[in-house]
């Protein structure tokens, strides 16, 4: 028996390593290609990466900034990943995020004067609910008439964005010239992390980061260890076998897309409650769309989403320092991000490289 157990645990480790191989190799190749591009453009890639790393993780403040930037990506990455697991491409996380942000901006004012923990919990729940609601109509259309969610969630993104646009310039507009909502009272905002962890001072990272990380583990658990997650994955892999096994494909589709919407909605809530304290037109830097890249890099694994979001957050946080210290344009970050996504999507490239370098080792393992 002990032997059997060992074989299993080592094979489980091997599975984890195999899963990690493609994303890691992709990131490495992207970094190499990125340095070639920098060399051609006449920059020093080593200095650039050093500055970037310093900018992302060099000090408590910078670590905090990386965490801050990774937070919305973690939520949207989880949202897209959950959808993918159920065979759904929620390309409209951005719209759900906008609606989540809207609910927080409105509710935060309404709840002025109430206890802070109460406000935080209620606003998070409400934002998740409206995110889910925003995904519900596309989900219903998908389940009942087969309308493709890529089209419908995208269209709902436009609707959501323009509703926000209208509200911040009209009905919900604060006094003054700028189209934005009123600033939230402090009891409707998320605490800063440096209040608990002083070494992060003076970064803006807020409690949303912790919420996102906890949620990632929770979603991982839901997918793997609950009947709900099991049904989502079963439908994602094989709807016919799921149907035969008594799983309602339409109900599972609706549930999964709504869960995805709820997660995306939370990204909007935490951005409003933790970063801007108010809502305006440009409060999201396309987090809903970058979430797709995060989910891809994480191979739809919720734990992987944490790492992928931190990587993307770090790239974004380190970009400024890179421009400042190594004099490399910040846009290089976008090139590297694009390369990572390209390489993860074109998984075969990484597989081929792994195959060539890893063949001998694999042969030894098999023998």
């Amino acid at each position, binding site marked *: 028996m002990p032997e059997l157990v060992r074989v299993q645990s080592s094979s489980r480790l091997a599975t984890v390593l195999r899963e990690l191989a493609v994303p890691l190799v992709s990131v490495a190749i992207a970094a190499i290609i990125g340095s070639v591009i920098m060399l051609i453009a006449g920059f020093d890639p080593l200095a650039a990466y050093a500055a970037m790393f310093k900018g992302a993780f060099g000090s408590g403040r910078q670590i905090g900034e990386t965490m801050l930037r990774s937070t919305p990506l973690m939520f949207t990455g989880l949202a897209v990943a959950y959808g993918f697991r159920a065979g759904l491409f929620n390309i409209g996380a951005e719209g759900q995020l906008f609606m989540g942000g809207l609910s927080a901006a409105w509710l935060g004012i309404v709840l002025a004067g109430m206890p802070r923990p109460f406000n935080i919990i209620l606003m998070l729940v409400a934002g998740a609910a409206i995110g889910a609601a925003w995904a519900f109509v596309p989900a219903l259309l998908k389940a009942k008439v087969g309308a493709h969610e890529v089209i419908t969630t995208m269209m709902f993104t436009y609707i959501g964005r323009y509703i926000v646009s209208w509200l911040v310039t009209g009905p919900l507009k604060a006094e003054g010239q700028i189209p934005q909502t009123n600033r939230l009272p402090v009891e409707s905002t998320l605490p800063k992390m440096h209040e608990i962890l002083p070494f992060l001072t003076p970064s803006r990272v807020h409690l949303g980061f912790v919420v996102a990380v906890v949620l990632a583990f929770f979603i991982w658990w839901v997918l793997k260890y609950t009947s709900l997650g099991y049904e989502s994955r079963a439908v994602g892999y094989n709807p016919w*076998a799921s149907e035969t096994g008594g799983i309602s494909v339409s109900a599972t589709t609706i549930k999964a897309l709504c869960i995805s919407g709820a997660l995306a909605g939370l990204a909007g809530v935490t951005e409003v409650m933790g970063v801007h304290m108010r809502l305006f037109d440009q409060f999201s830097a396309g987090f809903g769309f970058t979430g797709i890249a995060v989910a891809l890099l994480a191979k739809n694994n919720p734990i992987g989403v944490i790492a992928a979001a931190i990587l993307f957050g770090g790239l974004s946080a380190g970009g400024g320092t890179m421009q400042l210290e190594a004099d490399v344009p910040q846009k290089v970050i976008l090139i590297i991000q694009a390369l990572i996504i390209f390489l993860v999507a074109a998984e075969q490239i990484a597989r081929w490289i792994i195959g060539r370098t890893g063949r001998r080792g694999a042969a030894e393992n098999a023998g």
Partner: protein
Amino acid sequence: MAPPLIELREITKQFPGVLANDKVSLSLKPGEIVALLGENGAGKSTLMNVVYGLLSADGGEVLVEGEAVHIRSPRHAIDLGIGMVHQHFMLVAPLTVTENIVLGNEPTRGGVIDFKQAREEVREISRRYGLAVDPDATVRDLPVGMQQRVEILKALYRGARVLILDEPTAVLTPQEVRELFAVVRSLVTEGLAVVFITHKLEEVMSVADRVVVMRDGRVVGETRPQDTDTAGLAKMMVGREVVFRVEKPPSACGDTILEIEDLRVLDERRLEAVKGVSFTVCAGEVVALAGVSGNGQTELIEAITGLRKVTGGSMRLKGVDITHAAAREAIAAGLSHVPEDRHRRGLVLEFDLMENTILGDHRQAPFAKRGVLDFHAITEVTRKRIADYDVRTPSERVKASALSGGNQQKLVLARELGRDPDLLVAAQPTRGLDVGAIEFVHNQILAERGNGKAVLLVSLELEEVQSLADRILIIFEGQIVKEFTAGEASDEELGYYMTGGGGDKLTSGSEEVRADA
């Protein structure tokens, strides 16, 4: 004497944990049909994939007309004159026969495909080898047998001199099988060599010149059909004696379990596929629904199992109305379903064996408590099922896709029978399985019968129907046209009613009966 077209010398292929080919040697001469016989997982397909350049061998060499070659890709194999027809056809359904055949080797004139010449060339080959097919037909509209013919023509068009057929009869009707055999014989008289991968013994006996038997990755014997019989081949293939006809005690028919009355069901095109079918199945009884594929069996099964809406009539399972029950409710009412297509409906191939074992029962105890899966219980039950149903697997954590076809089917059976159902609906439960696995499945079905369960069996194999059923219902064009009790009818009689015969104009020869189809 001509040199062998292909000679394989000590081909070895290792997969993680499995030695798929262990020093396999084989040679093919022009003008011969070699049957490569073996159970699923014996290494036949691996060997042929090496020859066709889909896999690269870890050891040994391949000689084509006496010259050692390293076949790098299917393209390279085709250039060397090796053609392969896969079990799953690789045709482009919306294109015509001609377009499919010339695809990849289109004759062109000034950069434009010369369809006139292409059609002529296709006609010419099809005439030369006696493979009649309409060059302008759309592949999607062709029956399976014709599609296979297009695949063969495709290989011939590219100059194949060795043709590998991977389980070519798995999808064919008996009529189509006979036509295929005629084609294969005419091919070898033209000097081709044909390798016929199969696990069906009758086919080997009727078509092969030489039989090479593989087991566990090795060649375990070679013989000629005239020197052996099916029992001898089965013994070589499985490594022990195989019982073909299962013995069963007479049925002890108990309570009525399934009652179907005047059932009406539509198919995908919204045409009535099941036209007022009524029958019952009682406890301890196997009722077989026999018919030619496409006569409403699939729709009927899907209606009973809750996968398809019913437009008329009623169904009761142990007195509970399941006419409009969804699959989940049907399962709860005591139904188990071994689906026709195990890859599509039976298993989630990307799931491991544990996850597949709980499919359908994943919401209730012992597998789940208040919506949370209990992996201790799941592991325990899965291990027990694997042991009870002899599923050959390295562990319960491997994906279902890693199992051989026979073991996948055992896993489906383990799940469905492990639920302890009142009614088992088994649709073509032995399709694509080898004799060892077929024997196992048959024994399990009869064990259920012995335990007082009701079994509804749908099968296209008359031998299976005859050996398992207590009652045989013949379905033709969505209606039950005849009922027999066990042993009452010959295969010919069954075939007669299956193809739309009726009254007492029964002809004697099976050939004539089949010609009606």
